């Protein structure tokens, strides 16, 4: 490697290189999943306030019809993912644990499931504000996993001047290939979405950042963008967590987002490519998010693939369709690094669920690996992309000194990517410690305010 390449490489410092296992599914085209007989649509699938129901139990709904409206700006509506009848609104389990109010939708088996609901927009003449409103009406949230309402990101604080739009096509989590397939199969939707968001933000320049293990996606998009100078495609180094927005901004633009701020503070807005492709596809028709691409992968799956899944499909149904092996004993929603393992299979697929990884771990009776004392090897310090000191944070967590963690060791800059736990030779579950510390600090802050 020559020195020039070293300095111009599009990457960030630190990070880890987990085995990516993407070959299992990256060549498989997106396939549509049939409808389950019962769908569970939670009223809260996003960060922010839960939606307010618009329909009553017993009412018939058509596919795509809005069934819940947004409760203020920090909220999004929900749409019926299938034609059928609302059986009830009940407390149903969610992937994170608490039971949340959800629509139970009984799907009509004989229905053609044609998407009848439509509100046409003339996207050529739409103003920026109209686009933002239409994005909220579509119930759009960050499909990469954060579930942050997209329209909120399209209205950055007035004092921030955004000059670059970044489309995040890194997909740095192992196993996941849904964004990869979307970029290969729906480049027109993606570019349409980028143009719409560019107009809403008033931004000239747009960059699509893609990890260099997906060069086919880079070439496909470059072909479609031959006559569009304002939108460029940039390959970035394959490294975890390249897809974290702060890392991607550093890699592409060499700008650093200050602690505690949004990317708009350095003039950047980052959107997941899946989100942008859905905006490009749905907005002209005024439709809502009712399905998404989910990668089902892992050693425990018989038929891994990229499935187009209606929102609200129970995880169990998806697993039945893909088939699981006898030895499968752990199901993770999202990727293996940041995803959440589920304890029940009756939780629904939500808008922000990008993948499902089924693992064949050694028999459950081995219990978790033994946690050994920290040996000060410093691997975690070299892995942390935020340049924190996970070792010190871990020791403070052990002694329960959560305030020092936050005040002196920048706990809140940790976005729980899991790189430190991944490299720790002592098996210290650092990220779990940090999550505990954050949850306690959050509660203390709430009590302080209240």
């Amino acid at each position, binding site marked *: 490697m020559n020195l020039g390449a070293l300095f111009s490489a599009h990457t960030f410092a630190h990070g880890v290189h987990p085995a990516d296992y993407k070959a299992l599914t990256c060549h498989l085209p997106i396939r549509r999943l049939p409808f389950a007989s019962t769908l569970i649509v939670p009223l809260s699938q996003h960060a922010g306030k839960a939606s307010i129901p618009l329909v009553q139990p017993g009412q018939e709904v058509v596919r795509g019809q809005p069934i819940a409206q947004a409760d203020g700006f920090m909220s999004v509506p929900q749409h019926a993912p299938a034609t059928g009848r609302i059986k009830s609104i009940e407390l149903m389990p969610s992937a*994170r644990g608490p039971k949340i109010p959800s629509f139970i939708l009984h799907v009509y088996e004989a229905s053609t499931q044609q998407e009848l609901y439509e509100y046409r927009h003339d996207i050529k003449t739409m103003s920026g504000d109209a686009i933002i409103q239409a994005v909220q009406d579509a119930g759009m949230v960050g499909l990469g996993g954060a579930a942050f309402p997209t329209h909120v990101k399209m209205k950055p604080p007035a004092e921030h001047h955004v000059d670059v739009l970044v489309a995040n096509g890194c997909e740095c989590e192992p196993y996941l290939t849904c964004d990869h397939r979307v970029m290969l199969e729906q480049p027109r939707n993606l570019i349409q979405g980028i143009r719409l968001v560019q107009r809403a933000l008033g931004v000239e320049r747009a960059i699509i950042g893609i990890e260099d293990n997906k060069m086919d996606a880079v070439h496909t998009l470059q072909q479609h963008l031959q006559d569009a100078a304002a939108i460029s495609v940039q390959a970035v180094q394959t490294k975890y967590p390249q897809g974290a927005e702060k890392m991607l901004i550093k890699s592409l633009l060499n700008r650093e987002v200050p602690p505690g701020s949004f990317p708009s503070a350095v003039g950047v807005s980052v959107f997941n490519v899946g989100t942008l492709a859905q905006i490009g596809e749905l907005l002209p028709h005024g439709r809502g998010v009712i399905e998404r691409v989910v990668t089902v992968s892992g050693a425990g799956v018989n038929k891994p693939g990229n499935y187009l899944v209606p929102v609200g499909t129970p995880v169990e149904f998806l697993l039945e369709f893909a088939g699981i092996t006898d030895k499968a004993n752990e199901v993770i929603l999202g990727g293996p690094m940041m995803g959440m393992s589920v304890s029940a299979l009756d939780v629904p697929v939500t808008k922000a669920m990008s993948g499902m990884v089924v693992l064949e771990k050694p028999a459950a009776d081995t219990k978790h690996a033994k946690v050994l004392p920290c040996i000060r090897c410093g691997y975690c310090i070299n892995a942390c992309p935020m340049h924190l000191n996970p070792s010190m944070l871990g020791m403070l967590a052990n002694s329960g000194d959560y305030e020092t963690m936050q005040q002196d060791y920048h706990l809140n800059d940790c976005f729980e990517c899991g790189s430190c736990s991944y490299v720790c030779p002592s098996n210290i579950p650092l990220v779990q410690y940090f999550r505990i510390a954050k949850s306690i600090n959050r509660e203390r802050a709430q009590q302080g305010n209240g």
Partner: protein
Amino acid sequence: MSSLSNVLIAVAFMASFGLILAAILVFANRRLAVFEDPRIDEVEAMLPHANCGACGTAGCRAFAEKLVAGDMQPSRCTVNSVEMNQVIANFLGVELGTQEKRVARLACAGGNNVARRHGEYQGVDSCRAAALVAGGGMDCAWGCLGLADCERVCDFDAISMDATGLPQVDDDRCTACGDCVEICPHDLFSLQPISHQLWVACKNLEKGDAAEAVCAVACNGCGRCAMDAPEVLISINNNLAVIDYSKNRLASRIAIERCPTGAIVWIEDGVQKGLQAKKIIRKSALPIE
């Protein structure tokens, strides 16, 4: 000769310099001194030095200051013995005050012999961590996770986990410091005056069969206790019995008699359940489904 005078000059200079500084210090000590009641130190010495915060102040020193100022009464300290608090009261010449003993009560009775689990949690042994990962595998999203965060946080060894994985509070040792209230991720602990004998040991918000399907001792919102209780002592809110403790003098065992699951209990020499409550004869943990 000249060397001796040099030494004398140096000694004289240092001595006079020292005297001047001493004079400044004496002046500063007189003029800038802050008077602190010497009784604060003495009262502090009589306090338990647990710095637990049960009295509502930042620690024993702060409590001693409040005592000397007369803002609080000695009985606010629940860690000290009554005799020692009486000594403080006599020393300060104030009333001992009356303070009803408060203890931490757990709003859950779902031990592993009655509450169902659908998954095995394999992470850090901490309720906080389990609550952040898919609810720790419990069917009931509101119930006790049984991983003993409260036992570890208790400075007074007042909490111990029993055979079914539920924390048991030793009323004599509990000082109502509130550490367990803060640590519990499901907010199951609260500090209750010992006179609150009627108690709802459940937080499940589901109704009827849905509630009983997850735990044999869940409140299913049937409302019998509310019907039997006088003057809206008990009401059903969100499928859960809620006791209005402002009417605590009306509370009696009658309220628990018809409870079909034993979710509402009467605390007197241990926990007493109603006659109708299903008898839980199972002693071992339920299998994980």
